[in-house]
């Protein structure tokens, strides 16, 4: 009797365990936990002072709001109109730069909220966060990469002002493509700067934002949990990035792959957790070529770090845990820095090629407009990313000075003029620059400098890559032989 009772109990236990296991395996949350958190969140509440009903301690809505404000700025920068006496374009850009959308009146511009091919869940910036703006988080240090001795935040405001008064945001006289300059520099001065020079820097020390206290009074997440989440939000990867290929992440940023984006299968893209932004997008663009793995390296380090913080269960992190966190920070920020450096490298190569096309246009007398348009776009990207690189925690002054000197404050124009400064009224001062040949040489040297100083692997648009390939093709291995 006892024996049959025991068997019956065992069967009941087994059925119960199987049911739990099955329901876990086939629910979305179950899938996440089954592979040991391949997705950034949900993570349980560990903050001991919290008594509310929340089950997930992950929070980075403010950072995604800033990603969307950055996207909007880039779009608006191309709407500059010198004929508008009300300065409406500038005012609108400043709104996205300065405003905290508590009232939920700031519409999301990019991605489009009316697309049926790539429908998004949120319509207003305020739906993600009502307390986030870009200006409050932009780098406050003096920028030597831009004329006028301005702080990072003032540089962006200066660019916004200029973009608003320039047709289409592109100043063909001075060579400034403001949509690119604003976008790329904001990526560095706000997103990268905040993550690596703030949240993963000071806030990952023992004394700052401890894990045994809430991030702020009444918060459901600890100091360390939220600091880590914020940095992840600035990185811009979808929470389920580890489940995607680099090409899928790239296509999500391009709004081309709804199926890959919609991880919870609700038919819409949650802009907080299912979208790829800014730096993560650039990482995916290099990774999809197969030589690098920036996106997943950084995202995995974020997930592993968050797991470690969660495992402390709301207690102060030990010395060993803090050391391990520093290891993750090192992986994240060095790879992130390399992604930006890869972009500087890539666009130095583009500018080199564009200058060749400008020489061709000068020779033939045709095709200058098309050549200039590409040149100014690529130079804007080059300059913006070079400035972004300087927004990190390390002041590599020698490298930065050389970069700034070689690319200058403005692109070398076909008449060999180049912006060299700004006067007291904010007008550009120009001088005669070097020859196109010399400027091309500067692009080569920029690429060479980056290869020396950063661990670049993708090296897209390598200006001397073709030459290296030719030498490889000749393939004379060193051997002692007579002729």
């Amino acid at each position, binding site marked *: 009797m006892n024996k049959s009772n025991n068997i019956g109990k065992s069967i009941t236990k087994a059925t119960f365990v199987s049911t739990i296991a099955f329901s876990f395996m086939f629910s979305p949350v179950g899938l996440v936990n089954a592979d040991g958190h391949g997705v950034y969140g949900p993570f349980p509440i560990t903050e001991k002072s919290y008594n509310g009903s929340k089950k997930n301690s992950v929070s980075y809505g403010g950072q995604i709001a800033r990603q969307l404000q950055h996207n909007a700025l880039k779009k608006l920068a191309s709407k500059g109109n010198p004929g508008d006496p009300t300065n409406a374009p500038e005012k609108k850009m400043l709104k996205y730069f300065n405003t905290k959308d508590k009232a939920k009146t700031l519409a999301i511009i990019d991605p489009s909220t009316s697309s049926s091919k790539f429908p998004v869940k949120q319509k207003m910036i305020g739906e993600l966060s009502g307390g986030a703006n870009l200006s409050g988080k932009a780098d406050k240090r003096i920028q030597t990469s831009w004329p006028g001795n301005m702080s990072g935040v003032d540089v962006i405001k200066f660019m916004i002002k200029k973009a608003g008064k320039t047709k289409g945001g592109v100043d063909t006289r001075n060579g400034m493509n403001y949509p690119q300059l604003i976008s790329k520099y904001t990526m560095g001065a706000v997103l990268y700067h905040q993550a690596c020079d703030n949240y993963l820097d000071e806030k990952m020390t023992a004394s700052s934002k401890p894990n045994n206290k809430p991030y702020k009074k009444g918060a459901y997440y600890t100091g360390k949990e939220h600091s880590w989440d914020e940095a992840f939000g600035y990185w811009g990867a979808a929470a389920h990035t580890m489940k995607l290929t680099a090409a899928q992440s790239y296509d999500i940023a391009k709004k081309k792959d709804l199926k890959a984006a919609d991880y919870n299968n609700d038919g819409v893209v949650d802009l907080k957790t299912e979208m790829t932004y800014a730096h993560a997008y650039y990482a995916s663009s290099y990774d999809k070529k197969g030589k690098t793995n920036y996106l997943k390296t950084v995202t995995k380090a974020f997930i592993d770090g968050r797991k470690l913080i969660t495992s402390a269960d709301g207690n102060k992190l030990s010395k060993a845990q803090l050391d391990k966190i520093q290891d993750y920070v090192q992986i994240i920020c060095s790879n992130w820095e390399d992604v930006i450096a890869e972009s500087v490298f890539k666009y130095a190569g583009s500018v080199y090629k564009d200058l*060749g*096309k400008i*020489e*061709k246009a000068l*020779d*033939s007398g045709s095709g200058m407009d098309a050549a200039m348009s590409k040149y100014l776009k690529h130079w804007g990207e080059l300059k913006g990313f070079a400035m972004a690189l300087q927004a990190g925690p390390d002041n590599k002054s020698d490298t930065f000075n050389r970069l700034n000197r070689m690319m200058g404050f403005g692109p070398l124009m076909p008449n060999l003029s180049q912006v060299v400064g700004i006067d007291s009224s904010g007008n550009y001062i120009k001088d005669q620059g070097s*020859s196109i*040949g*010399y400027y*091309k*040489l500067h692009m*080569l*040297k920029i690429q*060479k400098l980056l290869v020396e100083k950063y661990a670049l692997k993708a090296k897209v648009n390598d200006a*001397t890559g*073709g*030459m*290296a390939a*030719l*030498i490889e*093709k*000749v*393939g*004379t*291995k*060193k*051997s*002692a*032989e*007579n*002729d």
Partner: protein
Amino acid sequence: MEFLTQIIDTIYENFFDPKKRVFVGYLLSAILISFLWLCIVKKKNLAECFHKIFDKNIFFSKSAKADYFLFIINIIILMFLSPVLITQLAIATVVFEYLHSQTLLMPINSDSHYQFLIPYFFTITYFVLDDLTKFITHALMHKIPVLWEIHKTHHSARTLTPITIFRTHPLEGVIFVIRSALTQGVVIALFYYIYGDNITFITVLGANLMSFWFHLLGSNLRHSHIWINYWNWLEKIFISPAQHQIHHSIKKEHHNKNFGVTFAIWDYVFGTLCTSKDNEVRKFGIAENEHKYEHNILYLYISPFIGIYKIISKYILSRFQNTNKKTFIIKN
């Protein structure tokens, strides 16, 4: 173990990479050409041809055995030296950067109907200039006493086989590596600057088109005992196997002749050409009488240093004596 694998890989590569002179395909083509030559031109039967081509007195001579040892030992030595030698890319980068700072030579930006010819132009130019620098280096190896001491290792061969090309002192190997790096670096940088991405090498089985044909048409017979000569007029354009064998001849009148590798025109221009007409080679080597240790491996490696030491000491001594003589004259 890894070291051993690397050696085996290098040996394998020499025989199975069509970019290499002793690639089996080129060796087979050299055998075929020899057969055809001996059968058709020299009217020999197949057995005679076979015995002539695969003469064991040649391939197992003391001289040939020394060649085989040098081939292996040099691979090991070059493995250590290679990392410190200047690369083609380093030279090409310096030249490429320099070209941006001058205005005499500018990139050609116009699209032309003849753009498809650029790779051929590049491939041929590279081959010709490579051949010219080989000629110059080779001539210098003979004319400059210190370099001759190094090059003598190669000329000490008494029998010639395709492997004799590896009977080379490592110092000479270093000189050739630098020559090759300089030529490739400069030519590639120059063309890449002018034509950009339009240039590429025309290759066959991965080897330069011109080198492929040069090797396929019997470059290995230069170092062989098969006397194949061309028409006299053709030997003023291309170096025949016989002409290179003349270069290895001990006869005084053959010394310092035929420095060219593919083209004879360099020798023709610089007055060092010797066609095969009315010339015959009796013996290969440096001197009539064989040196006791001339095929001793250690001697082959050390003798250039002894030779160079003697030259330098003699030079210093002569300078010293001259200075003393002058002092004596002034004093008196």
